[in-house]
């Protein structure tokens, strides 16, 4: 009898230990991706093969860009170090497969948020980090100053497997212009073919046009037409089915944008802990328990702001100061006439 009692006690103890263990790491347990990331010690991030301002590697292999900064923010929040990111350059064709097959955990690669991508193929878009639109680049000496000047027979170079290809068709069809689409897998080949004169126009997202223009042999001979023919909200993507991880990525991005809204920068973040504004104090982790809801500690957002900076800093560093798009246009805060507007962190 006593023998059995002893066994029973140990069983109860074991269950109790297991239970405490479970409650403690509930969030981590719920999110397989978060657990794996913490175990590995780095965030696996899919980026482009080189798009200045968004994700681009220098000669030493250091990645910079606004898309890169989203991954760095997640690394700062989850692992405490914005440099603990492993970047995987992906072509437009490879990107979704890499994400759904577990090669990467975040896809931050100037990817347009559309219904079919969000709902149909096992992906979830978590937000928008750049509002873009498709435009056309032409040679200045062609005399074309508007998309209405295109004539039937025009050949257009673009990237394969993008929303660009579909928008281009919609656009030329609505104008009743017969055209010749020339689609390449890599952006560098599109640029080379357009540069050589294979195509009359090069079409992609306007930010992409601005960034790729500097790769042409004579950038000054080319110009981007004023019209925008589509909505291209670009943002980070995660796998469907891990809502905790989805929340972490979403709120890492939101933190950067909200920090700009409240004037919290990488330089003044620490001193903001004593701010009078409760929203600011929540943002730097001096008030509330927001980190716990994500399965993180309370300093997660402070680390993002200190190590990566707010959205405005990231934009200035990567896109404005590099001369790609000095004017923020729609990517300005809603308080300053743009459309950047994120839900409150509380």
């Amino acid at each position, binding site marked *: 009898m006593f023998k059995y009692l002893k066994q029973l006690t140990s069983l109860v103890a074991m269950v109790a230990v297991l239970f405490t263990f479970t409650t403690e790491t509930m969030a981590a347990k719920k999110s397989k991706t978060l657990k794996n990331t913490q175990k590995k010690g780095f965030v696996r991030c899919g980026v482009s093969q080189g798009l200045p301002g968004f994700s681009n590697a220098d000669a030493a292999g250091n990645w910079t860009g606004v898309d890169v900064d989203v991954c760095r923010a997640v690394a700062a929040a989850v692992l405490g170090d914005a440099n603990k990111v492993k970047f995987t350059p992906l072509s437009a064709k490879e990107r979704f497969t890499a994400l759904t097959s577990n090669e990467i955990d975040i896809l931050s690669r100037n990817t347009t948020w559309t219904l079919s991508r969000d709902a149909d193929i096992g992906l979830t878009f978590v937000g928008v980090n750049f509002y873009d639109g498709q435009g056309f680049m032409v040679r200045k000496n062609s*005399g074309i100053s508007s998309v209405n000047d295109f004539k039937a027979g025009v050949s257009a170079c673009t990237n394969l497997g993008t929303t660009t290809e579909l928008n281009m068709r919609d656009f030329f069809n609505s104008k009743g212009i017969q055209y010749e689409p020339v689609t390449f897998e890599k952006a560098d080949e599109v640029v080379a073919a357009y540069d050589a004169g294979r195509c009359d126009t090069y079409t992609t997202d306007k930010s992409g046009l601005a960034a790729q223009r500097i790769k042409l042999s004579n950038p000054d001979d080319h110009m981007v037409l004023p019209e925008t023919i589509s909505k291209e909200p670009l943002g980070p993507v995660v796998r469907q089915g891990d809502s905790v991880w989805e929340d972490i990525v979403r709120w890492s991005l939101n933190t950067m944008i909200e920090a700009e809204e409240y004037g919290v920068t990488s330089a003044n973040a620490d001193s903001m802990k004593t701010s009078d504004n409760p929203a600011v104090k929540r943002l730097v982790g001096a008030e509330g328990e927001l980190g716990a809801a994500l399965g993180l500690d309370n300093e997660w957002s402070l680390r993002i702001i200190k190590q990566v900076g707010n959205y405005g800093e990231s934009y200035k560093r990567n896109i404005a100061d590099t001369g790609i798009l000095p004017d923020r246009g729609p990517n300005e805060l809603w308080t300053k006439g743009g459309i950047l507007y994120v839900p409150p962190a509380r």
Partner: protein
Amino acid sequence: MNIKKILPQLLTLLVVILVFGFFSYNAQINMENRGITFGYGFLSQESSFDVQFSLIEYDGSHSYFRAYLVGLLNTILVSVIGIIFATIIGVVVGIARLSNNYLINRTAAVYVEFFRNIPLLLQIFFWYFAALRALPLPQDTEPMFGVFFLTIKGFFVPAFVWNNLDVFIYSIIAAIISIIFIRIYAKKKQENEGIQTPVLSISIGLLLILPILSFLFGGVDASVEIPVIKQLSQSGFTFEGGIKLPPELISLALALSLYTATFIAECVRAGVQGVSKGQKEAAASIGLTPNQVLKLVIMPQALRIIIPPTTNQYLNLTKNSSLAAAIAYPDLVLVFAGTALMQTGRAIEIVSITMLTYLSLSISISIFMNWYNKKIAIKEK
């Protein structure tokens, strides 16, 4: 049947089925977990993307299946062009390597060593971007014979505009059928009576006369449509009318045939050298002309050595044509496993269809070449 013989085969079959079953089950579970649906229904949906070059009528309002056909036909087109040119260049270079003329055989050797030792993808890039750099813009081009225009935007050639095209095609089919009958008759006549019939001249005559008759009496009429330059903007031009061969097709076909021709040349050289010298001398000694020696004695024996490795080269060329995606030639991989895959996100379905398609293409070539090989094999009497 012996149970001992059947059992191991049944077990092997079972293992194969289990392995496949396991993988498809696994894939199904994983896809379910990630919320991906599986099905081929998308093939009938509207594709909503355009393709620059197509052999059949196609635009974005057609289905994904139609887009698949466009890609497949483009793959077959570049493969057929590649195989024809690779064979011609290969045979010429292979024979040139056997030439007694030092200059000719060294040139051929240098060509073979140079082109077969550079990766094919690099050669494709070279021909494409070299062509783009070297070719003139449409407004600067000099017409060849007044009607052909080679420009950076493509090779524009005149097109025939037909009246009663079907009658013309029937006349050619009729010519081919009668040639087959004449050949059978000529062979019989030679076997029975030893008299040779000039089959070649009769064949050429038939191929010319019947179509001409269709023009004279069948109401067939063809006019030529010559490409005309068209201004798109102050500095942009293109050609209208005629047929346009895109530079992507030309450079891909060029790279594939120059590369594969080197291997075929080596097959040809091996085949001819594999026929013993005695055969040639014996044939000459019974009074055959050099032409007859080559046609009746050397080639039938050499072909038996040449065909099997050349089949491999044809298969390689067909599969290598999938590198087209690098230079925007809309082949099966670019159109279907590229754009269509990206737009639908149906990776497993599309990749499996693409793999099956290449498999069927390769097996068809294989079956045809094996049939041809069997036909020319030694028939033991």
